[in-house]
């Protein structure tokens, strides 16, 4: 039930220094917000990691995840190897995942995956358990930046799954502008020449980020004036551009010319373009690497194991299975979202022809991370404001 986790979380957070006030005037503990210049260690109190050397449970391994976010082949291979089965429960949005975790998190053994803006509340809310790295020999394969990330110092609770940037994609056979050469590539999303032809990602963070990045503002801002300006910019855009909002834009490549999109999706655009159109007709730019050097999002999704999971050893084994370089490569060939594994480099991906050469700029290296920004945890009241603005802008579409 929703109320159960709150008192314990409130008690934990009350120990933290900062406090905010609710509308009713009663003090509400502040959620520590991880930032690159303010790394956070998630607390381990009544939820220690599992002991070393345990045998995998019989299963089934119950996964709470985005639809189809691990290749079926990889899941089947795991099932065969551990003589178990995998049950997959889908969530559509990160907020939905948090709701499901809070109401019945122990029903699942593994979350695939958690976005960075939710790691803190799951950790401080004691909804996830620490990882026991002795079950994760392949953790050594992940990029150094994720061995001890700022949002989970020591990677005590999380292991990285995928990395991706959020940029602009376009049909270069229908869009004449040289978008990478533009001073502000985000302007193309508001260009009336493409009214009815522009697609934006749906989600309170990504949609608002389109405006915040265009303004050159912080994508994690809590400044009401900046947010109001972003809202107005989005409402003007909605009125003038009639944007389409969704995150399955790969199915609409024949209909929309300009896309705010994730690099991970672009790699499978080649399979969804209108018949007869070569993939060279599609281009992608990540603004920090364009001429104007505007800010852009680069981020990663992480695995986490719910507190009270019935098959935690199997869950560890699955994380390790996916982080295995050969499995990660096979998984990537289908999923399109790049694994942060040291042996899987842009060169190896291009050599294996997993990504078309004209879209090599969707590939990410560890060195790209300092160039970009991440959508990070917000104070609850600010988070609610983001969601209200998002709903006002999209109308729930």
């Amino acid at each position: 039930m929703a109320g159960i986790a709150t008192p314990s979380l409130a008690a934990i957070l009350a120990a933290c220094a900062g406090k905010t006030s609710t509308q009713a005037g009663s003090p509400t503990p502040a959620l520590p917000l991880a930032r690159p210049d303010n790394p956070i260690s998630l607390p381990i109190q009544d939820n220690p990691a599992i002991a070393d050397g345990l045998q995998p449970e019989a299963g089934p391994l119950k996964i709470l995840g985005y639809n189809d976010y691990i290749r079926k082949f990889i899941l089947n291979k795991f099932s065969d190897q551990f003589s178990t089965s995998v049950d997959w429960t889908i969530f559509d949005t990160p907020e939905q995942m948090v709701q499901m975790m809070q109401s019945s998190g122990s029903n699942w053994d593994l979350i695939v995956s958690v976005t960075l803006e939710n790691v803190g509340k799951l950790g401080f809310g004691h909804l996830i358990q620490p990882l026991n790295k002795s079950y994760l020999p392949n953790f050594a394969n992940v990029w150094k930046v994720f061995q001890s990330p700022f949002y989970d110092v020591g990677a005590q609770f999380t292991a990285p799954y995928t990395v991706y940037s959020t940029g602009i994609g376009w049909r270069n056979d229908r869009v004449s502008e040289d978008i990478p050469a533009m001073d502000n590539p985000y302007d193309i999303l508001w260009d009336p020449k493409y009214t009815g032809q522009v697609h934006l990602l749906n989600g309170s963070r990504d949609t608002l980020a389109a405006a915040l990045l265009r303004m050159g503002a912080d994508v994690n801002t809590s400044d009401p004036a900046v947010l109001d300006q972003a809202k107005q910019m989005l409402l003007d855009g909605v009125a003038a551009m009639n944007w389409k909002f969704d995150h399955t834009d790969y199915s609409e490549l024949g209909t929309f010319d300009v896309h705010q999109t994730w690099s991970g999706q672009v790699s499978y655009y080649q399979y969804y373009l209108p018949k007869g159109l070569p993939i060279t007709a599609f281009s992608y730019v990540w603004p920090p690497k364009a001429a104007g050097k505007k800010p852009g999002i680069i981020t990663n999704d992480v695995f986490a194991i719910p507190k009270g999971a019935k098959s935690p050893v199997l869950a560890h084994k699955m994380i390790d299975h996916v982080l295995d370089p050969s499995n990660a490569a096979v998984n990537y060939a289908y999923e399109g979202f790049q694994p942060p594994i040291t042996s899987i480099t842009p060169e190896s991906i291009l050599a294996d022809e997993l990504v078309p050469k004209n879209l090599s700029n969707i590939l990410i290296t560890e060195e790209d991370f300092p160039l970009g920004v991440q959508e990070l945890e917000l104070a609850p009241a600010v988070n609610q404001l983001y969601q209200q603005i998002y709903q006002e802008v999209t109308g729930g579409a």
Partner: protein
Amino acid sequence: MPEGAGSGSRGAWFPSWFWPSFAAPATIWLLLLFVLPFFVILAIAFGRVDPIFLTPSPVYNPLRWDFGPFRDVLSQIFAGGSIYQSAFLHTLTFVLAATALCLVIGYPIAYFIARHAGRLRTLFLVAFIAPFWISYMMRMLAWINLLQPNGYVNRILGGLGLANADAPIQWLNGKPLTVILGLAYGYVPFMILPLFGVLDRIPSSTLEAARDLGAGQVTTFLRVTLPLSRQGILAGIIIVSLPMFGDYFTQTLLAGTRNTAMIGNLIVSSIQSSLVQTGASLVLILLVLLILPMLYYLRATAKATELVAR
């Protein structure tokens, strides 16, 4: 058979609770799957929100309910230009237009099958309904293919000289007309079936009597068939429009823009975000609005039954 056994009246061998017990499954069903969930919606709409997770904390004691958030949503519906008001207006417009379209399409089909299809009536009925055995989602996805810029609809219109091949009609880019057509297509069989049922039951002798009294075909239709099929029309309108009011999927697939957002879209997006309390409030407001046409239908049906009984 003992006297009164079939009616459950006094003197039957059944105990007094026998016949009322037949209502038990439906009563339990309603309690578990309507009354209880409805109370949970009330508890969420008038409850609290977790200050950190922003998830709903239902309050089950009505004495502790907080009506503030509900009032906020309600006031925004009446605030000019708010998204809530726009969504309600879009929904009302789309549902009225799509229901009218269903009636215009469904009535002639039902009339034809009931009165003129002869021995082939079952075949025609099945033929008209058969496409709807395919899932709603699949049919909407099929429309996406048909309505794409280079899809068959534009090609046919281009062939007829009604569309320019170089500037094809962008049906899927947030056009209200596309949503209305999608809704009408999705729900039209639910209009045909009740109309067919009513039209099929109009005795031929009644129509012949009208003709014998000098009425022409048009007059017979307007003075006899149409009034006698009123209950079918009302039932069809209710059956078709109620689910349309809560529909969100059609808009999402065929438009997906703010300019076509329906109230169902707002409810779904609220529930999938941290605005669950807003979603619960919208559900309650929609429910109250839908009770009005339902009450009208029940009153009209009761009056019609009364007339028949006289």
